[in-house]
């Protein structure tokens, strides 16, 4: 129990440090928020142009969720990249804590940050579209799927963090490849039914597919989470499989980085 407490405190250290960084760069955070709101708005306005309130809501869900995913990925990727730049990566690796504590701290902060960021965008969009009909919406379903989606994305986040660890110069940018592939196959702005059959198979491997299905069912049709079992269980399974796999893969990557000397400061 004491050991678990120590590891949780270590995870908290990463969350606190990242919070300090966010606080120091608050002006950038405001600018980034403005950018995210503008992006989500411009996508949602396509629905207005088509004269479909349902499309507006569907695109809004896609834009907001995509923003969440992007923010989480960026935080994870940039944390390792910034640690490289600042030269702190070696000190972090020398700390007497488990890999899982380190990564859980980083990923948890990314998710908390992402949820707050996303909530603000949702609020602004709500103000921009005051006549949006959310009378049937089931916010509980949306909350359940965001939580389950976060759980599933921990594993993917850890896997994405391998890239800046291994690819010194362009690793952070390479996480965007993962991000854009998820965008393509997960039905963020369109139904996965329109994808070629082989892409539809891949879409079943993306947690985002199930999260978007669930959130849309909850907000557009008011379906309770209990009736969306077909979307719930894949998220649980993906989380259970991807987290240990991510930790294992990150461990292998760390060993490779230590063998080849890639932990050293660059920048």
């Amino acid at each position: 129990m004491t050991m678990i407490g120590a590891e949780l405190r270590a995870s908290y250290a990463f969350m606190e440090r990242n919070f300090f960084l966010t606080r120091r760069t608050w002006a950038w955070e405001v600018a980034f928020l403005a950018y995210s709101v503008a992006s989500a708005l411009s996508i949602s306005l396509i629905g207005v142009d088509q004269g479909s309130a349902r499309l507006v809501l569907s695109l809004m869900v896609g834009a907001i969720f995509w923003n969440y995913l992007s923010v989480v990925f960026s935080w994870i990727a940039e944390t390792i990249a910034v640690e490289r730049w600042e030269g702190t990566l070696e000190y972090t690796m020398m700390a007497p804590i488990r890999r899982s504590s380190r990564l859980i701290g980083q990923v948890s902060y990314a998710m908390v940050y992402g949820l707050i960021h996303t909530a603000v965008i949702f609020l602004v969009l709500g103000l921009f579209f005051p006549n949006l009909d959310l009378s049937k919406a089931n916010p509980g379903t949306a909350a359940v799927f965001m939580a389950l989606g976060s759980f599933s994305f921990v594993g993917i986040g850890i896997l994405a963090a391998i890239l800046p660890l291994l690819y010194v110069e362009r690793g952070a940018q390479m996480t965007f490849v993962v991000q854009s592939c998820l965008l393509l196959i997960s039905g963020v702005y369109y139904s996965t039914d329109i994808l070629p059959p082989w892409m539809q198979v891949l879409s079943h491997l993306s947690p985002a597919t199930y999260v978007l299905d669930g959130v849309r069912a909850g907000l557009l049709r008011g379906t309770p989470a209990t009736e969306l079992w077909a979307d719930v269980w894949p998220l649980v399974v993906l989380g259970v499989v991807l987290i240990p796999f991510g930790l294992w893969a990150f461990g292998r990557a760390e060993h490779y980085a230590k063998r080849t000397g890639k932990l050293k400061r660059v920048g």
Partner: protein
Amino acid sequence: MTAVPSDLLSPKGPPGRELGSPALLIDRVSKSFVVGRSRPPVAAVTDVSMRLERGDIHGVLGANGSGKSTLIRLIAGLLTIDSGRVAVFGHDIERDELAVKRLINRVSVDAAFFKKLSPMENLVFAARVYGLNVKEAKRDVYAILERLHVGSDRVDRPIEQMSRGMQQKVAIARALLTSPILLLLDEPTTGLDPRSKLDVQDFIEELRATHDTTIVLTTHDLAEAERLCDRITIIDGGRVVAKETPDGLVAAATARLGRAATLWDVFMAYTGRSLDDDVDTADEETLA
């Protein structure tokens, strides 16, 4: 001058699992790097052995690219070992990784911090990951920084606003905060002004006098090595070429040269070049 509280830097609890184990044992360690598919691996460290007892200050001298920093990184567990073994108080650094990490810390030539954060924010982070009580750690931060002549008014300002010397002192404070019983100092005074250099050197001497921290010190400052080190290992081309006390090395050089020699003569004799020549050589950092 404010002395650091005696309980601050001493190790907490028993140091190792084997009584009588050396503080640091490096046994025939080798490490090479692949630098290209068509080129043979480059040997950075070859068959290096060292044994440090508790409380020793052991200097490692060598030209740029000689393998000093690679050796420090191997001890710190930041590089895997190709062959050989490193043990800290009986704990093998690869098998007992977490146990070793609790016993050691390192100060490198670059003060590596999140520069937007303040010294206190950076050091609180270090305290948390090393499982320290944050309230006590904050008190210790003030004590150590005051001892290193870093004013308390600097503690909450971003590190990027501090001079390089100040930043290096904060780096030393970070290492000492965790009470390491093996401290790896990789050129800690390089680039510091004379006053800051003396502050750091005085502090290292104080550590030796009042605590039993074992220190591995790499430096290009031969006067610093002569002043601080009990024993010196000279590395050239990744291999140990000499291992003696500073006086012993100088005496041997005096006998060989037939005149009063200095540590500079020793360095020249074993590395085949002067420190000035090092500027032109490839830095080992490009290798590791």
